[in-house]
């Protein structure tokens, strides 16, 4: 059955005053033979919506694809929500034309006409999504049996989900099982808590929904959310299971104290780390390790390794509290004992301040800002500690029985992409024909060899066997608003592996990670994408007969959605996919397309733009906007009635990273005079929701510019601007500045060819 396009034009909100809507209707009927064309003074109102619904419901339907030429697709979404089988294309005549252009002008009308043409063409090229419907496992794999893993397992099971808990040690409990007492968690926030861990471990062991493997490790994880196949190596042999989502709760390890010789570690058995002291405290009264004598004076060195660019540049967040707790142990064990604490800043956020206050009130606990510059062994068996930079001015020398180094936390993580690179280079060392390449690969192997054997999940992913890490080895989210975001869909980090945190925080963190894991399997079960395109039912298809195995898509996907077969052909995993279209932009063969977002669709929209011949001296400028940030910014510029060049034609992209350079060639060969790309900021503090999208677009653009020069076209005809969503006042300026520059360059010489 041939499709019937219904075009519904709103004349409200100033559209009717700014534009000749009857002319637009005529265009839809004439140029496009639209099956139904209606004009309504308030399309989003009950009458207007009823008009559309009537056409959809007519027998036979008057329209089966809708083009709604009214306000921004961000507005009135409730009113224009139809059955998801119906293709709905919104043409933004209000914010992007009527509110940003002078009313009644010929150029304003032409802009609206072009947008209508582009919208109709887009609807023609769109198909309703066919959601991925595949059987999913709702089981959750939790890796790590410390406090975070135990909590995640219990909470997911408590929500009705089966859990597979894998711990590499023979018993559950992790670090917290070794502590004497925990930080205060209840009012008055001054009393140390008993552990509370044993009860939780028992609950896990006897929970009907939780299967525990101890002394086990993961040898392989393949598949995708809803369908991860996990192979374990366990004391009773190999085991396998299918799970839907994964929580990485592998915890932390103390910073290597042998690197803290400058603080006295290794000098004497009486210099210990905070972790060692905790074990001593849990085992019995704290005594001097060298001779078992009571501790009369102890000195704690804060930030032993942490907040130190030569060691751990970050703050380990818990050491101040750990020290206050351990000072309490010592003071409790020996009421005569003196405790000295040397710190950079004492960090006890929130109610932990109360505990700090209690320590300050203790007459024999001495806290000072300062730096430990030397630790020496004295003839009397004590340790002499020199402290500089104290408020007292002069250096302080304290003789103590015990020096405790508040060593920091190092995540038990594995850097997937680094491991992948290491393996690639190891292969090159063996196989490359070029000596120079072999040497370069050997150099990289040397740099990366610390990653050897660190694998945890052993993901069967083209982009490496584990989560990518962010900074300092933590597989944390880069996004402040979305702290559980990772670059591997369905795999979430929780606890101290994600960021330095104490046990209470890790317990809390595990809850959220369990929520995300449950959500990932439920969304996969519904065929929906997860954040940020949550609920999107569309996904790309790959026309592999024409694939040249260039591997750009598999390399550029920020989320590792694509594997490769032996030849390098991409293997798509729909539930890993975030539907951003970066692969679509990467593909030189144009074989990656969504049912409602394709290379051909955008190319057709570009072709739908009427480009005046050069004698009119009216340029045409194509603007690709990131639909997440730049597009809303242009909407707000419209709401603020900001004017900008009438010669621009905007096409929103799912992400700027989905820009396929063929569109630029299409535009320039059509005689369009300039192409402006506006996307999110990139670099260290990138704001791209799809991580690398805007940066990839920039890289692709640089490559096109070289081609342009060969064609004797000015590279300035192409420009990429980085813009944050709140820079809506700057966007019209950017557009106008670019339009002015294009004006100076004069018409595209290919115009009219």
């Amino acid at each position: 059955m041939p499709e019937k396009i219904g075009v519904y034009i709103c004349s409200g909100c100033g559209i009717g005053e700014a534009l000749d809507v009857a002319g637009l209707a005529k265009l839809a009927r004439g140029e496009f033979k639209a099956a139904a064309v209606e004009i309504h003074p308030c399309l989003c109102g009950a009458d207007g919506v009823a008009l559309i619904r009537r056409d959809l419901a007519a027998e036979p339907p008057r329209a089966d694809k809708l083009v709604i030429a009214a306000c921004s697709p961000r507005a009135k979404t409730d009113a224009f929500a139809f059955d998801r089988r119906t293709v709905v294309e919104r043409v933004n005549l209000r914010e992007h034309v009527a509110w940003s252009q002078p009313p009644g002008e010929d150029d304003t009308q032409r802009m609206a006409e072009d947008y209508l043409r582009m919208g109709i063409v887009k609807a023609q090229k769109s198909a309703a999504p066919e959601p991925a419907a595949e059987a999913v496992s709702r089981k959750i794999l939790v890796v790590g049996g410390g406090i975070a893993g135990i909590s995640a397992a219990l909470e997911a099971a408590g929500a009705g989900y089966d859990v597979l808990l894998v711990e590499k040690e023979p018993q559950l409990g992790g670090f917290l099982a070794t502590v004497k007492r925990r930080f205060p968690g209840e009012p008055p926030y001054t009393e140390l808590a008993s552990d509370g861990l044993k009860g939780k471990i028992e609950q896990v062991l006897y929970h009907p929904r939780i299967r525990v493997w101890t002394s086990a490790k993961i040898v392989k994880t393949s598949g995708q959310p809803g369908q991860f196949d996990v192979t374990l190596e366990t004391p009773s042999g190999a085991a396998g299971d299918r799970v839907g989502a994964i929580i990485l709760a592998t915890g932390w390890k103390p910073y290597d104290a042998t690197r803290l010789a400058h603080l006295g570690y290794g000098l004497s058995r009486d210099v210990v780390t905070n972790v060692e002291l905790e074990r001593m405290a849990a085992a019995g009264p704290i005594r001097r390790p060298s001779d078992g004598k009571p501790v009369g004076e102890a000195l704690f060195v804060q930030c032993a390794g942490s907040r130190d660019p030569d060691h751990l540049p970050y703050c380990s967040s818990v050491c101040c509290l750990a020290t206050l707790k351990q000072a309490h142990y010592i003071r409790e064990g020996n009421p005569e004992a003196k405790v000295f604490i040397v710190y950079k800043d004492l960090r006890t956020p929130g109610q932990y301040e109360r505990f700090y206050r209690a320590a300050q009130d203790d007459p024999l606990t001495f806290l000072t800002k300062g730096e430990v510059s030397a630790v020496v062994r004295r003839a009397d068996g004590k340790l002499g500690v020199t402290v500089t930079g104290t408020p007292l001015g002069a250096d302080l020398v304290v003789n103590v029985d015990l020096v405790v180094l508040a060593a920091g936390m190092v995540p038990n993580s594995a850097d997937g992409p680094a491991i992948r690179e290491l393996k690639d280079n190891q292969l090159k060392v063996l196989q490359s024909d070029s000596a120079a390449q072999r040497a370069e690969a050997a150099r990289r192997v040397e740099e990366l060899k610390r990653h050897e054997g660190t694998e945890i999940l052993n993901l069967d992913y083209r982009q490496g066997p584990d989560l990518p890490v962010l900074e300092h080895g933590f597989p944390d989210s880069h996004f402040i608003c979305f702290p559980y975001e990772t670059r591997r869909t369905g795999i979430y980090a929780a606890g101290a592996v994600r960021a330095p945190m104490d046990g209470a925080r890790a317990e809390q963190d595990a809850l959220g990670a369990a929520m995300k894991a449950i959500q990932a399997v439920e969304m996969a079960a519904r065929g929906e994408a997860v954040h940020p395109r949550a609920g999107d039912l569309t996904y790309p298809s790959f026309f592999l007969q024409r694939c040249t195995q260039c591997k750009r898509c598999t390399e550029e996907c920020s989320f590792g959605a694509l594997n490769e077969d032996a030849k390098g052909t991409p293997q798509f995993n729909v539930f890993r996919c975030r539907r951003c279209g970066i692969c679509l932009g990467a593909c030189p063969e144009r074989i990656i397309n969504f049912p409602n977002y394709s290379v051909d669709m955008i190319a057709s929209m570009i072709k739908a733009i009427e480009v005046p011949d050069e004698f009119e001296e009216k340029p045409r400028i194509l603007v690709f906007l990131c639909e997440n940030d730049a597009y809303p910014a242009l909407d707000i510029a419209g709401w603020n009635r900001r004017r900008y060049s009438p010669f621009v034609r905007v096409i929103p992209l799912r992400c700027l990273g989905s820009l396929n350079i063929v569109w630029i060639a299409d535009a320039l060969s059509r005689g369009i005079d300039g192409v402006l790309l506006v996307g999110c900021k990139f670099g260290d503090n990138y704001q791209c929701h799809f991580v690398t999208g805007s940066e990839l677009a920039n890289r692709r653009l640089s490559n096109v510019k070289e081609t342009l020069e060969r064609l004797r076209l000015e590279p300035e005809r192409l420009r990429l601007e980085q813009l944050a969503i709140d820079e809506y006042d700057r966007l019209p300026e950017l557009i106008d500045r670019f339009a002015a520059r294009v004006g100076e360059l004069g018409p595209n010489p290919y115009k009219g060819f």
Partner: protein
Amino acid sequence: MTADGKPILVIGGGIAGMTAAIEAAEAGCRVILVEKEASLGGRVARMNLYFPKLCPPSCGLEINFRRIRNNPRIEVLTLARVEHLAGGPGDYDVTVRIAPRYVTSACTLCGDCARACPAERSDEFNFGLSKTKAAYLPHAMAFPALYVIDRAACPDGCAACREACRYQAVDLEQREEVRRYRVAAVVAATGWAPYDAARIDNLGYGRFPNVITNVIMERLAAPNGPTGGKILRPSDGKPPASVVFVQCAGSRDENHLPYCSAVCCAASLKQAAYVRSLYPESKVVIFYIDIRTPGRLEDFYRRVAADGGIELIKGKAAKIDQDPATGDLLVTAEDVLHGRITTVRAGLVVLATGIVPNSAGLPPGFVRDEFGFAMNSSGAAGLYAAGCVHRPEEVSASVQEATGAALKAFQCVARSTGHA
């Protein structure tokens, strides 16, 4: 698994409440999200940039608004308050009182009402530093995208907005509405308020116009704020040549807030960066007790502190005086590391006021500690608090907690439907 169960109730539409609602709804729960203001976003919508990335909150808000728009399982109630809550886990009976907006969902955002409106009102989005018409949109990115009419600001008998509206979206006769819901669980994310700086006598807030709070500073720095993003002195509208930040203005103080508010150090470092990037010739001094930037925030601290125009002095500000001739301020503090008393002249002083939980918005059943923070461990199963009403914390930690609270609520739904 939970779509067939009762909905959950989320109180508070700031970043924590919004997150709890969205995360639970995407997992399959139905959600009622109750917000007392006319639009969602709470305190984060009023911030200029987030630390440490210095990125705008509206970026994540836009994504979250889109997630709400696309999710039929979330019902958003604005201008609404929870009035009554009874029952237990799996089945709470809740009454919500919804104040009239006087604008219906027919509003198209055309703005004709505001253009026609003759009256003005104090703009609470800018903490009263600017005015809006009595018919107004809370801010450009407000969600729900509907105007509001402040009837208290309307002249008697005026109906200019109704006459101007071509879509019959203005309903000046709209009445308050009371709705009842049965919900399986409640997440309270009622947020926080800045500590009342006027109660700290020695710091001059309320007496000296150029002493402001960190919350006001966010509005002054925001492009959509009352000064268009220019940080200007309230006394004379001039850019300050020097800015002093006073840390722990109320926090870590037995006479005010005995706890640490956890975010003010990073917030002041961020605001110091605003000042320095806007006015490269300016000087910034930060008086602090301890700089508390845990985890990766340490990188941010190091980066900001490396700016030669920013001086960090360990010491608590003892008093602030005003030079009446210039409106400048003289901040006297102990410089602990040099063992001396120092006085610094400042064009503008920013008090890093702490976080006070909005515990008044907590329904009965939530247990509070002596400072008003909700305690999840002792509260009833089925009632969970998240975000700054639970403990003072930064945005990402609030979101993290809210995601966890969504799971606790999800469990209640799953249990009540026999799925768990």
